[in-house]
């Protein structure tokens, strides 16, 4: 057992809030680097944390993070997801400097963090990877030849990447080198490495992943699957568990495959093994994410577990191993990622200030966020505002609750994808669970047309009356002033 009373969260946003809450529950002080720009708006959200002013580059600066953890007398570091969460050098730097890195050992991260090596490990574990190759050391001609030998379309992706950053689908040999150039540039900006990888694009694929947790002594369990097939720009926007196509038999097969992979690398803690599943339900190893995932709450809701608490308990040396047969899922959970982006304009980011913000609440509704009214979504970071997680006794029930939650999530002042998510939710194919990663592109027009553009003049009355700074409406007839405001007049209260 280790004494840990202060933990550095090497992250920001909703995952920093999620980790902070888990730490505070265990009476551990979360220490949080916050940039000058975000300071004001972080104060109300992280008022129960130790906040430290830091430069904008902090979340990618391994040395500065280690120095900060030491200066703040932290005994451990939680990396969250993104940024340096899957950077083995950062994990190594923490370990060398006497800090516990809340994640797998640097060696396991290094093995799995590299896509080419991870594929070799999968093969060793008797799991087929998606056909592909690393472009490292190949010249332009060789790259084209190898791509043609696996067959177009192909996907170009960052070797160290995740979350769709630095990933591009290429239809024919002509676009390949451009896509590689773009991926390299995005990859260096986001992951600090420009290594890229080319892999076969499976038609009509589903993206299904297995949550694993390795308890001390090599006891690895799988905690069900998550269907993460609804994606835009190769980034997940809706996740659910269980998957509409995974039955108990397939779950066990995929789960055991994931556990074998984790065991080969001596994994510790929470991890996710991602698979591509084709139309015949064959599954191929895609990659392993050696960290907590954005969509982890979906699993937590179905299995009634707290994965972040397990991570912390594992670091403290007090985690209680749960046997596989005790992990039983119940009901159905879904997560909807709310982004500051405009679906009508190719999901272009739409940063800006949130003027009104009210999160939905009710049975089976969980919202993960780190914003408040008045928060600004800056262009510097990922544009995710919040995650809406719903739980129901069935998929239908979860969808009912999702509709209520999304409808009652108020975010005014910036454009978000909230209504777009509602359109997906009402689409017959989504409701029937007929999903593949091309869903959004295929139904783009239907989803767009489904947006009700009808003119209801009632909304104008509401806008005009609420535009008035006091929100009050006059008794009797009034007209707007030169600023477009209706003069405030006291309303008689009946």
């Amino acid at each position, binding site marked *: 057992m280790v004494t840990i009373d202060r933990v550095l969260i090497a992250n920001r946003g909703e995952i920093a809030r999620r980790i902070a809450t888990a730490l505070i529950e265990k009476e551990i002080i979360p220490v949080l680097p916050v940039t000058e720009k975000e300071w004001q708006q972080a104060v109300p959200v992280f008022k129960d944390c130790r906040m430290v002013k830091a430069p904008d580059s902090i979340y990618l600066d391994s040395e500065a993070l280690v120095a900060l953890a030491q200066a703040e007398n932290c005994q451990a570091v939680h990396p969250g997801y993104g940024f340096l969460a899957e950077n083995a050098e950062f994990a190594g730097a923490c370990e060398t400097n006497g800090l516990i890195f809340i994640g797998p050992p640097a060696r396991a991260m290094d093995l799995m963090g590299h896509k080419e090596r991870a594929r070799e490990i999968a093969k060793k574990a008797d799991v087929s990877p998606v056909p592909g190759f690393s472009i490292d050391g190949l010249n332009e001609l060789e790259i084209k030849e190898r791509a043609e030998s696996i067959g177009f379309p192909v996907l170009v992706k960052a070797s160290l990447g995740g979350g769709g950053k630095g990933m591009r689908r290429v239809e024919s040999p002509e676009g390949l080198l451009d896509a590689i150039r773009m991926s390299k540039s995005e990859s260096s900006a986001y992951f600090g490495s420009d290594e890229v990888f080319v892999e076969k694009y499976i038609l009509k694929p589903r993206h299904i992943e297995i949550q694993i947790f390795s308890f001390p002594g090599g006891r690895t369990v799988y905690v069900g699957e998550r269907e993460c097939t609804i994606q835009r720009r190769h980034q997940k926007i809706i996740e659910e568990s269980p998957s509409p196509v995974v039955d108990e038999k397939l779950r066990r097969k995929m789960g055991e495959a994931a556990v074998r992979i984790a065991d080969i690398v001596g994994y510790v803690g929470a991890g996710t093994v991602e698979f591509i599943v084709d139309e015949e339900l064959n599954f191929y190893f895609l990659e392993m994410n050696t960290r907590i995932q954005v969509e982890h709450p979906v699993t937590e809701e179905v299995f009634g577990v707290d994965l972040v608490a397990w991570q912390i308990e594992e670091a403290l040396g007090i985690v209680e191993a749960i046997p596989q047969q005790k992990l039983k899922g119940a009901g159905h959970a879904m997560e909807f990622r709310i982004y500051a982006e405009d679906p009508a304009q190719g999901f272009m980011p739409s940063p800006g200030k949130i003027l009104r913000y009210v999160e939905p609440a009710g049975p089976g509704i969980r919202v993960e966020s780190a914003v408040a009214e008045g928060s600004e979504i800056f262009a510097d970071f990922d544009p995710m505002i919040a995650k809406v997680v719903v739980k129901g006794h069935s998929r239908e029930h979860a969808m009912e609750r999702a509709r209520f939650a999304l409808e009652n999530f108020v975010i*005014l002042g910036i454009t978000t994808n909230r209504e777009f998510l509602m359109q997906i939710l009402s689409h017959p194919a989504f409701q029937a669970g007929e999903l593949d990663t091309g869903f959004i592109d295929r139904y783009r027009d239907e989803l767009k047309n489904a947006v009700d*553009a009808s003119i209801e003049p009632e909304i104008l009355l509401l806008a*005009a009356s609420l535009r008035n700074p006091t929100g009050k*409406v006059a008794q009797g007839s009034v007209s707007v002033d030169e600023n477009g405001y209706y003069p405030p007049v006291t309303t008689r209260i009946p």
Partner: protein
Amino acid sequence: MTRILWNEQEFELKNLKLENDILSGTVNGETISLPVVTDKTGRIISAANSDGLPMPVLAATKREYTFVQWKGKVEKITFSRGREGNAGETEGDGSVTAPMPGKILELMAKAGDIVEKDQVLVLMESMKLQVEIRSPIDGIVSGCPVSVGDMVDGDSLLMQVDAAKQQQQ
């Protein structure tokens, strides 16, 4: 004179009033009334949908824009001053502006270049994503006030394109 614009249409609103929890007014000559619920300060907090079910309503105002969320939908309504000019008059304007704040990664055209509508002129990075900014019209690039590496605000001018028809004459 205030003009109300919504979904690229102009509206005239008169006789707005609230009496006995009924909000009413005349929109483009048509009188409308709507059952509402107000809080103790008199602010409207919900309004009935066509089935009579009260639906929460929230609003926020930024300069000339008012955002209203009602029945799960957000509407952006513009209350602008002045009567000159029409909505959508920017059609045919060759200003290439930044759709959001970000960094200039690459300028793919320079002053004097002949460009086509939808040709990529600028590559920007925002929120770690690369965004291509395209020419709104056919024409000639007449100016470019930004350089590679610049951080720009949303709506800032990146390039000016003069319409092609001036060349044909």
